[in-house]
C-alpha cells in the first residue's frame, strides 16, 4: 500500500431510519416514511490521519460513526477499510474483520461490563480474534498496553473493576481495549465529552499518541470544535445528515466559510472575561429530521438565507485549498 492511499474510503453513506406508523397509514402510503439521519456522506481518511466530524446533537454524526463500522446497518453506500469492502461482508467474516476497526464510546462507565475486571475486558478481544497463544501471553500483552495508556502499576489494575476507577482511567481502559487488536481504523464517538476538563486533555493526548504509534486512521466525532483542533488534521462539519464543510483544521479555523461553521465557532464560550464578542447567532434550534427543510437544510436558521437557498442542493463545492463548502454564496 503506498503512503498516500486512504485507509478508509466512505462513499455516499446513507442511513434512513423507518418512522413508526400505524398499519392503516402503512396501507395507504406506498413509500414508508423515514428519518434521513445520514443522507449521502463521503469521506476518506489516510493512515495516521484524524478526520474530525463536528456537529450538534441531531446532526447524525453518531450514526455516521456506527454505520461506518456496521454497528448499525447503513441503508446505502460503500465502505472500504484497509482495502476490504465492508458492506459486502457477512456474518462470520464481518465479525472477524472487526479487529481492524474499533470504536470508543462517549460513556466509559457504560462501555465496560461492570462484572468483568478491566484486565479481562481488555483481554477479551485477543481471545475472540485468537491473538496470542496462551492466557499468560495475552496477559503480558494487556499489561504492556496498560503501561502504555498509563494505568500503572499495571498488574494491580488488571484485577480492578470499572467502579473502582476514575472517569479518566475508565476511558483509558476503553481505549486500551479498542487498540489491543492493532486496528487500522478507530472511531471516537465523543470520547472525551463526559470527562472533566482537568483530565480531558490527558485522554486527548493519549489518543494522539496512539494515532501516531499505530498509524491509525481516526474518525473523531465530537460536538466540540476546540477538542477536535488538537487531534485532527482535517475537520468536517455536519448538519442534519449532510456534511456542510470540510477543510484542513488550520484552514477551517482561519477561514470558516459555511455560515453554520462560523456560528458554531462563535458559540464556543471563551474563558476570558475581557473578550466580548459580537456573536452572530442563528434563529431557533436544529429542526427535527422528520421535518427537514427543502433546499439547503440550514436555510431556516441561516442569518444570510435568501430565496435561492430554498431549492439548491447541498453539493460540496471546492473553494480551493481542498476546502469544500456546501454554501455557494460565501467564498
Amino acid at each position: 500500500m503506498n503512503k498516500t492511499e486512504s485507509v478508509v474510503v466512505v462513499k455516499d453513506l446513507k442511513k434512513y431510519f423507518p418512522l413508526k406508523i400505524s398499519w392503516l397509514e402503512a396501507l395507504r402510503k406506498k413509500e414508508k416514511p423515514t428519518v434521513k439521519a445520514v443522507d449521502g456522506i463521503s469521506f476518506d481518511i489516510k493512515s495516521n490521519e484524524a478526520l474530525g466530524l463536528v456537529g450538534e446533537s441531531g446532526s447524525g454524526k453518531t450514526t455516521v460513526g456506527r454505520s461506518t463500522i456496521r454497528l448499525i446497518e447503513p441503508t446505502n453506500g460503500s465502505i472500504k477499510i484497509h482495502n476490504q469492502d465492508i458492506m459486502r461482508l457477512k456474518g462470520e467474516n464481518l465479525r472477524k474483520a472487526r479487529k481492524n476497526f474499533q470504536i470508543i464510546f462517549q460513556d466509559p462507565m457504560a462501555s465496560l461490563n461492570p462484572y468483568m475486571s478491566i484486565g479481562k475486558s481488555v483481554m477479551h478481544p485477543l481471545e475472540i480474534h485468537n491473538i496470542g497463544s496462551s492466557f499468560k501471553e495475552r496477559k503480558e500483552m494487556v499489561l504492556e498496553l496498560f503501561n502504555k495508556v498509563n494505568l500503572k502499576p499495571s498488574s494491580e489494575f488488571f484485577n480492578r473493576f470499572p467502579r473502582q476507577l476514575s472517569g479518566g482511567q475508565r476511558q483509558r481502559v476503553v481505549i486500551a481495549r479498542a487498540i489491543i487488536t492493532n486496528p487500522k481504523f478507530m472511531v471516537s464517538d465523543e470520547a472525551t465529552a463526559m470527562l472533566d476538563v482537568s483530565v480531558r486533555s490527558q485522554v486527548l493526548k493519549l489518543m494522539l499518541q496512539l494515532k501516531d504509534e499505530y498509524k491509525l486512521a481516526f474518525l473523531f466525532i465530537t460536538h466540540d470544535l476546540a477538542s477536535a483542533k488538537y487531534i485532527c488534521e482535517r475537520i468536517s462539519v455536519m448538519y442534519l445528515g449532510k456534511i456542510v464543510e470540510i477543510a484542513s483544521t488550520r484552514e477551517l479555523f482561519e477561514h470558516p466559510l459555511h455560515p453554520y461553521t462560523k456560528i458554531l465557532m462563535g458559540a464556543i464560550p471563551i474563558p476570558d472575561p475581557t473578550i466580548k464578542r459580537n456573536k452572530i447567532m442563528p434563529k431557533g434550534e436544529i429542526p427535527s429530521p422528520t421535518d427537514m427543510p427543502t433546499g439547503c437544510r440550514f436555510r431556516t436558521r441561516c442569518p444570510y438565507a435568501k430565496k435561492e437557498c430554498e431549492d439548491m442542493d447541498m453539493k460540496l463545492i471546492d473553494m480551493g485549498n481542498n476546502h469544500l463548502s456546501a454554501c455557494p454564496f460565501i467564498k
Partner: protein
Amino acid sequence: MLSEKIGKNIKQLVGDSSGIMFLVGLFLLIIFVIMAVFAPYLAPYSPIKPTGAPLLHPQASHLMGTDNLGYDVFSRVIFGSRMAFSIAAIATVVAAAIGIPTGLIVGYIGGKLDSVITMIMDSVYTFPGLILAIAIAAMLGQGLINISLSIAVVYIPTYYRVIRSQVVTIKSELYVEGARAIGAKSPTILSKYVLPNVLPSTIVVLSMNIADAIMTEAGLSFLGLGIAPPTPDWGYDLSKGQQFILQNDWWLVVFPGLAIILIVLGFSMFSEGLNEYLNPNIGEKR
C-alpha cells in the same frame, strides 16, 4: 409475588435499617434449616406414630400438644420443615432451570419469537397461581415430585419475565454494543456480558420464589392435593387442625400456621435485604 410485597412492607416499617431486616430474615432461615437438617435429633417423638393421648394441651411432655390421633405436634412441625424445603427447592430449581435460559435467549433474540413466547408466558402468569397448581396437581396426582412440578409450572413465567425484561434492557447497554464491536459471538455476549448482569436479580427472585412455593405447597396440602398423610406437612396439619378449632383446640392450627408464617417472613425479609445489598442503586443516594 406475595412474598415480595411482604418484604417491601417490612422494609417500609424498618426504614433505613434494612440491614437488621436482612439479619432477622437470615436468622429465621437458619433456624428452619437447622430444624430440617437435624429433625431426627431435635424432635422428641416420631412424627408418624401416636405418642400420647389424643388432643393433649401443650405441656412439658408435648410442647405443642398432640393432635386427634395422638401425634406429637411439635415433632410434626419440626419434620414438616423438611417437606416444605424439599418441595420448595425442587419446584424452584425446576422453574429456574426452565425460566432463566428461556428468558435469556428469547430476550436477547427478540423479534417474533419474543412476542410469541412472552404471550404464552404472560397467559400462564395471569392465571392465579394456586388455582393453576391445583389443576396440575389434580392431573398429576399426589407425591413429592408431582407436587413440586405443579408448583414449578406456576413459577416458570416469573423467572422468564424478570430475566427477559432485564435482558431487553441490558441488550441495549453500551457494553453489549461494545462487545459486538470487538467481534464477540452472540453466545459469548450472552454468557459473559448479559448473564452476569442479570444474575443478581435472579438470586433475589429465587429466594422470594422459595417463600411463594412454600405457601403454594401449604395451600395444596391444605386442600388435600399434597403429600399423602401421615407424612408430616404443615399445610395438611393446618387443614386437619381447623376441624378442631371450634372445640378450642387452638394448638393444632396455631403451631403449623406459625411455622408457615415465620418461614415465609424469613424468606421475604432475607430476599428484600439481599435485593438492597445486590442493588446498590436503591440505597445509596448522592
